């Protein structure tokens, strides 16, 4: 999970153009500057490209809903990766 977190963090840093971003499980969209609906699309596109995965329409929406955070995002990504 740590390796995954590092990779996701890299994607966040690139998308939000902020090399200082450090991801914690409890973080939500409100904790990251500029995470509006268009940046959300940019983030999803970048994650899909980086990991070679595909988010379902409902999953894309769910990521910004209440109760969701970086922890649940990592779980979602992890669940889509081919098992090692």
């Amino acid at each position, binding site marked *: 999970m740590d390796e995954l977190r590092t990779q996701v963090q890299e994607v966040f840093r*690139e*998308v939000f153009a902020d090399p200082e971003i450090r991801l914690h499980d409890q973080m939500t969209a409100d904790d990251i500057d500029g995470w509006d*609906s268009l940046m959300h*699309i*940019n983030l999803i*596109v*970048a994650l899909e*490209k980086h990991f070679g995965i595909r988010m379902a*329409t409902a999953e894309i929406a769910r990521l910004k809903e209440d109760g969701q955070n970086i922890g649940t995002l990592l779980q979602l990504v992890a669940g889509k990766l081919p098992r090692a």
Partner: protein
Amino acid sequence: MAAHASVLLMALEDFLSAPEAQRPDARARLLAALRAALADGCWEEAALTLRRALVPTLDYTTAQSLYRVYRQLRPQLPDPGVPLKLALLSNVTSDPLAQFLELFLFANGVAVELYRSDYGLLRQEILDPDSGLYAFRPRILFLATTWRDLSEAPPVSADAATVQARVEAEVAGWAQLWRLAHERLGCQVVQNNFDAPPWRALANHETRHPAGFGRFVAAVNASLADAAPPYVTLHDLDHLASTAGRWAWHEARFFYHAKLPCAPECLVDYAHSAASVIAAHLGLARKCLVLDLDNTLWGGVIGDDGLGGIRLGQGEAEAEAFVAFQHYVKALRQRGVLLAVCSKNEEATARAVFEQHPAMVLRLDDIACFVANWQDKATNLRQIARQLNIGLNSLVFVDDNPAERALVRQLAPEVAVPELPADPSGYIRALECHRFFQTTSLAGEDLRRTEFYRANAAREQAEASATNVAEFLQSLRMVARVEPVHEATLERTAQLIARSNQFNLTTRRYSAAEVLAMARSPHWITRTISLTDRFGDNGLISVLLACIEGDTLRLDTWLMSCRVLKRGVEELLLNHIQALARARGLRRIVGEYIPTAKNAMVREHYARLGFCLIETNGAGHAWWELAVTPDWTPRTTYIREVHGDG
């Protein structure tokens, strides 16, 4: 500074040439190099690198990152490019499209000032004379429509006549918007055609049934193309959807989420395409394709393998790929792209292939300029640009050898140098995807351009044999047709206005729409000159736009194609203007000169024609005056003038 330049150059080379697996690393290095250059204030170096990194095959995330570099860079650049006021109207989310458009226009040397409507207000912005669109006054209005903007699709039960009426109603609706925008703004309109979706209720029968939706979309697209006046350019969105693959293009998750017009990854190529069309309107398309020979036009090395040894022709797979590439290049030549050869070879050996090899598609008379020697290619490219009288930034250089490409990128950065795959079957795509030779219209001149340049070579020989200039000019038996701009000459006139840089006194770029308005205005005098001589037809080669202001005729625009320099066309036009001003009772003619990086050759144009300098400003913008008098002696020319239909 120098350190940044070399790091940027290496990072750019890696970025452009990295194989798929190494692309993420190469991308990260390029971005790091760009950011380091920005941090140290090396704006020009960063801008040069950024421009060349902006290829249409960028992925969405990289394009976003490069866009942020651009935003940081742009305010720092002393010369961000040709200014352009562009309005983008659409009924969907246009933010990423607008960003990428700005980015690719920057790559084309255009500094955009952008206006965007709020989501969903495309029609209202045009219909409401008090909308922000009209306050903004764009020079180009881009209607970024999609198939969802179609409003007249027929029910599947409709008969052929009903469908036809629906098609006409659909087209009339758009034509009405074009007309309104044009009447109120005089701007050029660029509109997408409609991107037919891949799903079909009627399956294979979709294109045969009169009311099939796919058939309706195709009919509307064809009718739009027929109905579009010169001030409207149709951007072929449907073609983009088909080259991307329609299921990929219409991947709708991000339409449901954010109302993006197509899949995010497809937006990059969409913006590249639209930017290339807009840049072509500004005269920024490339003009000449310069070709290497060995392993570019044929397989093998002619100097080593000989005529019988090179691979070109039917029967062997790779040899066929080279033939196909030549056919592609030939088609570009036939529609007006100039071809040149730049090869490291003995000239006679290289020419022999064109003259003697039975499978050659390209012949020597397709090539406007043939350079084969052992000099470095950057030097040769400069030579080619000089001989053809075009800028280095009009050239595209195609070479299979990565080292030659890198050298030219480094030593002649104005030349576009696309990456080529090792496999010649990929050459066409590698070149085509860049849209270097985008064109907004095709005039008769385009189809005959190589002839013009070759006839010029023949004239140069005649000039060498004549003992003096007057005798030479007489021997040409020139006839000039001088006439106002009319429907048949409008497109070519607009094209010359967009493209002429050197013999262009003011470099004011007017759209076809604006020229048409002038031709109809009582305050403007428009003239074009078409020239023929004993070597052939030079086509429409000069444009004058003059404005009557009180007792003055102000020469707003005077430009001429460089292929008819020193033939007496300027003097002929001066005689024409004098006579015309006199007939209208005007007292004086005022000519303007606005210096640019490219028009130094006409700095003394008005002095040569006997005008007096009356004013200059700090920027070198000069006003020259010539009195209109009955005793004025016409200049001697060796050109017979005919008018209108005579």
